């Protein structure tokens, strides 16, 4: 049953470029990119318990690295994506070094500071980033295939998103992933069981930043033009909302949160368009409306379902297949 459902979903996704509208493919690409980025943040915050407000900064690092590598270093666009991830991972590990000493709120503050410092650096380092005016990002091309629109880009996004999902799923069913969860749940006990807590945290920072950097590179390629303003703090908060609403420490939750909250504003847009007859100023307030709804959702989920959509989903599945015992997810939560 579950196999059939995922098979049908996969088939629909593979066929999407052949029948979807331009708008649908734009949204689908943004969903896929969000899945990769949210998975990255979830590895750090949900699975390892290290809160980060620096997600937008790592998106920016991924985006500007890719743009720089393609336009100024002459790297092929396809190679630039993992390279951007690697650069983000390296910087992520550097930011992670103080994390051994910092916990909870202090880490939130340190990553917030990292956000503003990265933003400042991006604005000032004009020779690399183009400064305030930003950069344009050429489409990746290989053997005459040029991914210059959403329809052509979708295959790559889908592939990378699936790879990211499988990687994360495997990881948290095996030793290194369990070590991260152990560090989150009880740092002292983890250390006593032989886990090098510092190393675990640094690898969580690196892996998380790699995913987020790849997402940033893809987002830059999709939008074609990036500037420091493409990465406001609210982007980091949106990503955290997706993690929380989707489900902290859950791979499936990352998908639900990323897709759900990427589609939500689109739904709001459709709704306000439909209601613009009665309330003409509603359209202009769309972004405010989005923030309002996201904020309310965060609060409501934290109070009533801290394990997010993933928990709701699991409960619904269990209810439907009450007879067949489901294997609990490797993520633990």
């Amino acid at each position, binding site marked *: 049953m579950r196999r059939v459902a995922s098979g049908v979903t996969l088939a629909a996704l593979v066929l999407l470029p052949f029948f979807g509208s331009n708008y649908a493919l734009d949204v689908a690409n943004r969903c896929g990119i969000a899945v990769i980025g949210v998975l990255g943040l979830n590895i750090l*915050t949900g699975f390892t*318990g290290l*809160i980060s407000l620096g997600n937008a900064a790592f998106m920016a690092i991924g985006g500007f690295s890719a743009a720089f590598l393609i336009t100024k270093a002459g790297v092929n666009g396809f190679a630039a994506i993992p390279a951007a991830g690697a650069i983000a991972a390296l910087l992520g590990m550097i930011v992670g070094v*103080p994390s051994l*000493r*910092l*916990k*909870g*709120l*202090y880490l*939130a*503050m*340190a990553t*917030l*500071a*990292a956000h*503003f*410092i990265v*933003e*400042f650096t991006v*604005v*000032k380092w004009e020779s690399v980033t183009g400064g305030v005016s930003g950069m344009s990002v050429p489409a990746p091309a290989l053997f005459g295939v040029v991914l210059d629109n959403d329809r052509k880009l979708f295959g790559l996004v889908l592939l990378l998103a699936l790879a990211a999902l499988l990687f994360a799923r495997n990881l948290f069913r095996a030793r290194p992933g369990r070590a991260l969860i152990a560090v989150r749940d009880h740092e*002292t006990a983890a250390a006593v069981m032989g886990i090098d807590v510092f190393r675990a945290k640094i690898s969580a920072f690196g892996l998380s930043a790699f995913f987020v950097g790849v997402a940033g590179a893809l987002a830059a390629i999709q939008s074609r033009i990036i500037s420091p303003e493409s990465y406001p*703090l609210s982007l980091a*908060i949106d990503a*955290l*909302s997706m993690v*929380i609403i989707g489900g*902290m420490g859950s791979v499936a939750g990352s998908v639900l949160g990323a897709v759900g909250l990427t589609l939500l504003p689109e739904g709001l847009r459709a709704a306000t368009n439909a209601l613009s007859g009665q309330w003409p100023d509603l359209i202009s*307030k769309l972004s*405010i*409306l989005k*923030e*309002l709804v*996201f*904020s*309310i*959702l*965060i*609060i409501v989920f*934290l*109070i009533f379902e*801290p394990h997010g959509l993933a928990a709701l989903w699991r409960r619904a599945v269990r209810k439907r297949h009450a007879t067949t015992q489901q294997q609990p997810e490797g993520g633990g939560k």
Partner: protein
Amino acid sequence: MDFTFLLQLLINGLVVGSIYALVATGFVIIHKSTGALNLAQGEFLMVGAYVCLYAMTTFRLPFAAAFPLTLAFTALLGVLIERVVLRPLLGSPVISVIMVTLGLAGLLRSGLQFFFGTDTRAFPELFPSAPVMLGVVPVSQGYIWSVAGVTVLLTALGLFFRYSRAGLALRATASNQQTALSMGISVKRMFALSWCIAAVVSAIGGVLLGAIRGGIDMSLGHMGLKVLPVVILGGLDSVPGAIVGGLFIGVVENLTGGYLDPLLGGGVKEVVPYIVLVLILMVRPSGLFGRKKVDRV
């Protein structure tokens, strides 16, 4: 070097810093007594400024009536938020509490934008506009009133904590919840009280800031994030630290704004508090006045 320019920067820094100090005090009070990190502190400030503006323009109330009304409103809001949003999360992981205050910040900000729009709104003139001369430096009267207001308020808070029953109970709660409980103090009520005080204090900061600037918009909310370097510098659980930290960050910000921004093409003023934050976290995470915690297993 132009001495008047330096003096002007220092005064600007102290004025803005005093408001940082005020908002940071609210922040510290919440953290001390409830352990929560309130990232919606800047939004409390906005609520204060907008409610006061609304009362004065739409209801045409004089400031003397609008101001107490604002305080009453924000006091109620603080209590309500604690009761509805924070209390269900008692005992939740730090991440949840931080995130819920981020959600709260978003809710308050988008709510205000929904009602008041995103344009800058003129704030009624509260203080005479003619500057007075402080030595050779002309200083606007708003600045003087504002610093005086903050000083009075912080003194009043200090007295409240030292001598009033509620203040003592709040301090007892902050130092040890179990002991406070055993002395018959309602810890839950103290949590509500600390959110109430924090909201009111920030609202006052918002009104003062509105009056000084002459206009308010959504950028007021950034004060909430600026306060983080302040409290890290001073120590998350120290009210004197919040005051010293506030003044220090205010001054550093204005000095770098005055001297480094022209050289580097702007933006340094905005980032320098966060560089200070990182330095403090690396050197002394408990801040200048904060207590070091001994982790026991």
